[in-house]
């Protein structure tokens, strides 16, 4: 009995890794680094994580978790509350519906998928932010952020892949 309990606990811990890692990434993205202008164009690490896990372990990165993660990022960054939740939910929905295309294919395809989805999300977030503040916001920082996210994506995907192979093989 105790063995099964320990097993269940182990499973639960391993299962919460995607969520925990995304929380950590959301926290890391607001830590002041001290690079000029970096604060504005910090890649959205949490969005990358949501995208990756929605493809590879959708049941460990469900819609409610995406919502909570979005709230967390908005609390951290001071962005309009609900904005990131909305965007993460969209990323999640698109990724889950298209995951058959990405699973088991070359990594480049996933990267390309992120290239498309993140672009849609960037433009959409810009439109929402403009509507929210009733002003035309500068588009450049958003595009730079998008480009940076795209650049760091392989690195994160590689790290997540390692985690997935070592910790989450059984889940």
């Amino acid at each position, binding site marked *: 009995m105790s063995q099964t309990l320990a097993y269940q606990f182990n499973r639960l811990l391993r299962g919460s890794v995607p969520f925990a890692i995304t929380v950590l990434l959301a926290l890391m*993205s607001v*830590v002041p680094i001290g690079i000029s202008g970096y*604060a504005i164009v910090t890649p959205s690490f949490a969005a990358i994580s949501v995208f990756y896990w929605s493809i590879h372990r959708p*049941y460990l990165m469900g819609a409610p978790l995406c*919502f909570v993660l979005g709230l967390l990022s908005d609390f951290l960054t001071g962005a309009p509350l609900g904005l990131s*939740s*909305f965007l993460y939910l969209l990323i999640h929905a698109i990724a889950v519906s298209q995951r058959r295309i990405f699973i088991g294919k070359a990594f480049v395809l996933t990267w390309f998928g992120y290239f498309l989805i993140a672009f849609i999300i960037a433009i959409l977030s810009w439109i929402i932010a403009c509507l*929210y503040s009733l002003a035309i916001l*500068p588009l450049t*920082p958003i595009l730079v952020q998008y480009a940076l996210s795209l650049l760091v994506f392989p690195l994160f995907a590689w790290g997540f892949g390692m985690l997935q192979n070592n910790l989450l093989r059984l889940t």
Partner: protein
Amino acid sequence: MAPRQGKVFKLAWPLKTIIQRSAFLALISLAIALLFLGKANIGVVEKMRTTATDFLAPILATISEPVDAFHKGVARVQKLTSLIEENERLREENARLLKWQAAGRTLEQENENFRQLLNALSDPLVLPITARVVGDSGGPFVRTLLLNAGRRDGVRVGQAVVAPLGLVGRIAEVGERSARVLLLTDLNSRIPVVMEKSRHKGILVGDNSSSPLLDFLPTNAKVAPGDRVVTSGDGGMLPAGRPIGFVSSVTERGIRVQAYADWTRLEYVSVLRYDLPGMSSPDMNPGDLGESRLDAK
């Protein structure tokens, strides 16, 4: 966690999809509702934000500790390479500043004498609260900072936040032990300013770009690049005469101001507790020294 494959599961599959879909839609609607509630400035949303930042600020403070240490180490190594030049430069600067100090002392005394002669009211006391920056905006939509000082330290909404070189912004939200600073570059930032020389008053309007717009100047005001811009103290929340920046460009589309503050090196900032006797309510801006936890020391 993995969906268990079985007969029951197969039967329940459509039901599960329906539940998942509706949950997804509910969450999307909730997110949109939150956006609207936030836009409507409902107190609940702000309360949620401040509670969350109160909880998150200590965690961020812990995480940023090693980053700060690393950053300091790098800066130290960088300084080591230019030690001699730096020393030479500082010596010269010190000699120059000593002259200025002498001049400043004389002027201060003279000013004090004139004040006494005219029986002029002196400026109210400004008390700085030093707070650590534990979070930056981390995204393109807002220009904010998160501080690890809050209401219990005497921080209130509206107070000025200054870095060593100049004004950074104002306090926008206050929790019990955390506060959010709206930087003067943020879209929602409006700061009453005055041109240091000509004494023309205006408003510094942030627009999410790196150099905010100087607006609402009188039409006859003459402005040239390089003119210094300081706080005017209008509105009673900010002390007058604090340096903000200099005019960087004057075009037909507007006057741009470059802030003095070094945005990359905001590790610690001062929140200015400032009280105009009889003008600000103690709840908004405490002048009572006994209240703050910091003053107990």
